[in-house]
């Protein structure tokens, strides 16, 4: 089927990008001064010990060889072992991938749940006082530093009201939802205003379309027009905005991860860079790249699901 061919084509296109990303990641991280072994041993070990450990890790080999070994491993799914933690990189990343994706999806869902009604109201009452009110609240949510929002939510819901825990991840799905509510809300406070604005303007755009007038002439209710005819058409630019931001938040949510002591990919990356844990950095770069591209692919697929015309392009 055409759609499967399309997906396969897109996956093939990922290969050169992954090679590019891995090469840039590898080169850049090796360009940085700092030696993982020296850092791991905190300057305590003798030169002799340092050299032995470097040798064991293969860090004494020429860079091209190291890169080829990494690529060779990556091709068969072996991302190597963390220098610091001595555990397989895929395992280390895997442990955090789930929570990170959970956090992101949860945040995105919360953001959409918050943004959808606000955007609809803002669009229907465009340029009215309610619209401006929503805009101002949105700008505040968007421009407030995330750690500030996070701490505020922690004080309010964690300390004063005691409704939600201020850290942790939980074990079951329901516990995840409960534990991650505040961090997700923090991200959503940033994301929702962006969605409100893009959905609002997309809706205003769609509402000038001829088929909306036709729908009104058919005697459809406002509600039905918005839900059935406007929102679906307005969704495409919003999905683009969402996709771009989720891709960025994957590593960019590190501030929220810190504030809520959340074991996510962002803080893993920061720590791995701090320790010069080369295999973890390289692995993460690949994983980030794959996720970003998969998100873009999913966004494109959802365009197609929404609007059949896209299929023809």
């Amino acid at each position, binding site marked *: 089927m055409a759609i499967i061919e399309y997906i396969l084509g897109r996956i093939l*296109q990922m290969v*050169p*990008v992954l090679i*590019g*990303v891995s090469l*840039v*990641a590898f080169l*850049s*991280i090796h*360009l*940085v*001064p*700092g030696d993982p072994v020296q850092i791991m041993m905190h300057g305590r070990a003798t030169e002799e010990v340092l050299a032995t450990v470097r040798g064991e890790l293969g860090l004494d080999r020429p860079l091209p060889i190291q890169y080829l070994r990494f690529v060779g491993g990556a091709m068969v799914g072996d991302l190597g072992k963390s220098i610091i933690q001595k555990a397989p990189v895929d395992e280390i990343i895997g442990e955090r991938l789930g929570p990170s994706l959970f956090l992101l999806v949860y945040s995105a869902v919360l953001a959409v749940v918050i943004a959808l009604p606000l955007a609809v109201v803002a669009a229907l009452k465009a*340029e009215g006082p309610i619209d401006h009110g929503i*805009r*101002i609240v*949105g*700008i*505040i949510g*968007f*421009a*407030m*530093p*995330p*750690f*500030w929002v996070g*701490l505020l939510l922690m004080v309010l819901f964690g300390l004063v009201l005691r409704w939600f825990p201020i850290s942790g991840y939980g074990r079951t799905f329901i516990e995840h939802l409960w534990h991650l509510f505040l961090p997700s809300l923090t991200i959503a406070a940033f994301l929702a*205003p*962006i969605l409100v*604005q*893009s959905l*609002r*303007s*997309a809706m*205003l*755009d769609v509402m000038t379309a001829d088929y909306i007038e036709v729908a009104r002439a058919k005697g459809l209710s406002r509600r039905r027009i918005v839900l059935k005819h406007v929102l679906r058409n307005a969704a495409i*630019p919003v999905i683009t*905005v969402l996709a*771009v931001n989720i*891709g*960025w938040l994957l*590593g*960019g949510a*590190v*501030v929220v991860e*810190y504030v809520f002591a959340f074991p996510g990919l*962002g803080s893993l*990356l*920061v720590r791995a*860079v701090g320790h010069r844990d080369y295999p973890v*950095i390289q692995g*993460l*770069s690949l994983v*980030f*790249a794959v996720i*970003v*591209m998969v998100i873009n692919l999913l966004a494109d697929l959802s365009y197609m699901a929404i609007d059949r015309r896209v299929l023809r392009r």
Partner: protein
Amino acid sequence: MTAIAIRDELARWPASLKIGATFFLLIVVTGLFAPWLTPYDPYTQDLAGFLQPPSWRHPFGTDHVGRDVLTRVLHGIRIDLQIGFITTYVPMTYGLLLGALSGYLGGWFDTLMMRLLDVAVAFPFLVLIIVIIAILGPGVHTIYIAVFLLAWTMYARLARAEMLVERGKDYVLAARTLGYPTSRVVFRHAMPNVINSSIVFSMADFVLNILLVSSLSFLGLGVPPPLPEWGAMVAEGRDFIFDAWWISTLPGLAIVVTGASLSLIGDGLAHRLGQRQRSFL
């Protein structure tokens, strides 16, 4: 433009554009005159008078080394507007060029650009910035370079998408049939119709970039002290958020106000440029 032309133009501005532009102008003017607006110096410390809450003497209080927060916020305007401006409009310039060319030319150039763009988008920003800091040392210029390497992608995407539409339009075809060189067709004829969405997006981008510097400061990767940069002030004040909320909150407020004015401008521009209401906040 004559005075009348200016008046007519202003009359066509939607309210949001007028309000936003007024605010922004106020901010710029305040930044320009910052040294004369307060009696304090943004760098001079008064260790004996540290962590003073807001008062008449110090309307925004003093920070953890006794500097006047209001003075630093006002001086921060210069730094942050400069950061916002450079990190937004430099990448926008070549992002637009690359995107427009890519959309117009298609073929191998387009494919190459799109793969380059994918790499830039997919590459973890934090790794990049740490690498650049390590090589060049910390500072504003380091942030610039890191942003320059990545921030063009959004503009390239927007320009390319618009160019794909414009390319098929009659006036472009007409210009081509007249035998104009490609560069003229792209830059003189099609470009003016391609840049609108980017201009509107740049307003949001401006704020996002200031926020980015704030996040980087949180991780210690922002501008070095003692520069009165808002994001750095917000991040430095965070350890004191419970006993001296003003250190971090009031510079944050400055970001919010600037963001609000730019957002209004963006909205108004979307309106005025007659584009399909594509605003990004």
